[in-house]
């Protein structure tokens, strides 16, 4: 279950009870980082037995007890930052080229062809970046023997035990890179069995198969959306766009179109506060207060295909 922002009008409790998930529910608040354990309000919404997986604190324990791994992880993070930085540089030029082409006056067929080629270049760059990041993670995990390192294995074992007793997992929003790092460190994807997933905001982004960072009106720069990393892949072919009220300019058809075409055939979904998308066995079976961005620049309420 993918949800819209929960801070002001939480729908989490009613959604959990709506599918008769009685708990216990594992909580992931690693995106809150140092505030990971300030989960009282969240527990109150859930109204059932809960257990915080404490991924952020567990990672701190790993870094403390396995300095060699910490060092290797830091080195990987530095490489990731460089990769993201260079990707961003190239991306901004590609997007600028696309913008310029769209402003040009030319015979329609030439314009369409060149604009399509420009967009294809952006898609190739996105895919290249995603692949580079995937290779980096794989190389790191193989080189350090991540799964078999004693401290990591110890935590993974504890997490497996905690999750085995849970009927659901609630993934809160927050810092998506922090969240992803911790989930990857503890191999969380492999530990998830048939629990119901409730993920909102950044948590929903991380649950999808591709994390796209976005903001149409930042105080600096053009607001170029960028691919960060692969997500857990709990849902596929959906680009999660929470907080559209403040982050998206849905009235800007050119931006909407570009985003939708860039990630097509994945569905770019704007999840407003109170929204939910119900995914079962990989297929969307229900949705509410969700807008799908269309390749023609429009956006329409997201409806389940019959």
């Amino acid at each position: 279950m993918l949800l819209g922002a929960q801070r002001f009008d939480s729908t989490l409790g009613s959604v959990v009870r709506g599918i008769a998930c009685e708990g216990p529910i594992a909580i992931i608040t690693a995106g809150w980082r140092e505030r990971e354990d300030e989960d009282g309000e969240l527990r109150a919404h859930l109204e059932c037995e809960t257990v915080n997986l404490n991924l952020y604190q567990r990672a701190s324990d790993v870094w403390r007890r396995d300095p060699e791994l910490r060092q290797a992880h830091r080195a990987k993070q530095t490489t990731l930052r460089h990769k993201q930085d260079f990707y961003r540089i190239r991306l901004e030029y590609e997007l600028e080229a696309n913008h310029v082409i769209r402003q040009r006056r030319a015979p329609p067929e030439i314009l369409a062809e060149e604009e399509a080629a420009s967009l294809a270049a952006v898609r190739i760059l996105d895919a290249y970046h995603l692949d580079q990041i995937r290779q980096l993670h794989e190389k790191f995990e193989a080189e350090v023997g991540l799964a078999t390192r004693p401290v990591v294995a110890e935590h993974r074992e504890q997490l497996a035990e905690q999750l085995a007793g849970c009927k659901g997992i609630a993934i809160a929003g927050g810092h998506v890179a922090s969240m992803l790092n911790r989930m990857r460190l503890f191999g969380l994807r492999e530990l998830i069995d048939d629990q119901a997933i409730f993920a909102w905001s950044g948590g929903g982004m991380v649950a999808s198969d591709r994390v796209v960072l976005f903001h149409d009106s930042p105080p600096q720069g053009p607001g170029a959306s960028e691919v960060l990393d692969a997500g857990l892949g709990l849902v596929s072919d959906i680009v999660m766009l929470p907080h559209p009220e403040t982050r998206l300019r849905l009235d800007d058809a050119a931006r909407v179109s570009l985003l939708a075409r860039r990630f097509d055939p994945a569905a770019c979904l704007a999840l407003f506060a109170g929204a939910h998308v119900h995914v079962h066995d990989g297929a969307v079976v229900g949705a509410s207060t969700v807008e799908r961005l269309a390749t023609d620049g429009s956006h329409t309420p997201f409806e389940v295909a019959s």
Partner: protein
Amino acid sequence: MTTQLRALLASAGEDIREQLDAWVKARSFPLVEGKSATFVWRGEADEVRLRHFIFGLETSQPLERIDGTDLWHLEVEIPPRSRVEYKFEVRRGDHNKWIRDPLNPHLARDPFGANSVLQGAGYEIPDWTRHDPKARPGTLEALTIASEAFGQPRHCKVYLPARFRRTRRYPLLVVHDGSDYLNYAGMKIVLDNLIERLEIPPLIAVFADSPDRLHDYANDERHARFVTEELAPRISSALPILDTPASRCLMGASFGGVAALSTAVRYPNYWGRLLLQSGSFAFTDIGHQHHRGALFDPVVRFMNAFREAPTAVSERVFVSCGVYESLIYENRSLVPLLDETGMQVRFVEARDGHNWENWRDRTREGLSWLFRGPLMMIYE
């Protein structure tokens, strides 16, 4: 004459005074219609003139009186989204008086007082400067430091961001004329909002005041020592501050801008971020004579020396200035000099004057460039 006023006069009967009363009461002034603005003043006088504060342009223009009434008016062109400060000069016999526009509630405040301000079509007070009930508020706490440099206490207010934690480390922003920035530029609300919107990272700000700013801020060695060797270490010892130049910023407007730059020059590469708003960067280059008065003498000496041999003293410098200010020339000409040193420099102009609202309206652009916020990474 404005279209509305013209229409009113054309249709006015013998009770024109009453109709004018009703017309004035139903409107806010100056009356802005697209690119034109009509100033209105009512009262008995021999002459009424508009005195605006746009540097370099003719400042004195007469208002015309409508016969048989006490209504004076003047129509001028006004660029969209601009803000122009003005007063009315009212002459009665030999007596001249400059007054603020009694029909206009909008004021532009500066370190020396306030003027009425005309807001061009499309100007809106930015929403991020207004109180947002959804924004988690930070806290302000008074702090007095017994300064050895000055031999007397200095008063500050320390801003801690919402959800402050001692286990995290924060950038430090030191703001000159701190109380004025809080009172007239709404800086606490601005910080609360920008942090809430993730446009800047949570930071600790010190709003520092001076009892004698015109001397302390004019390249006074004691001030630079106080800020760098007393205030910053005191804050760092009491609060979790990031210990890198990139995490330390000096901010100031007008003479406060001089204080920020001259402190950075005295302590190169300690303050890695500078936010300079309408800095009073007066210089002469040729000779030493200037028209700005004796208080500017140390400023001119400092700026002449800095302009003679500019060096990189910081990493990033954000400079803003209003195009209607007399200081626009000094600020514009400083930018290439800063740029040549290798520092990263961003310069922003606005159709505005030397006032707190101008400085308030530029803070988002400046702070978010100096301290990049985590808005692309955090989705709560």
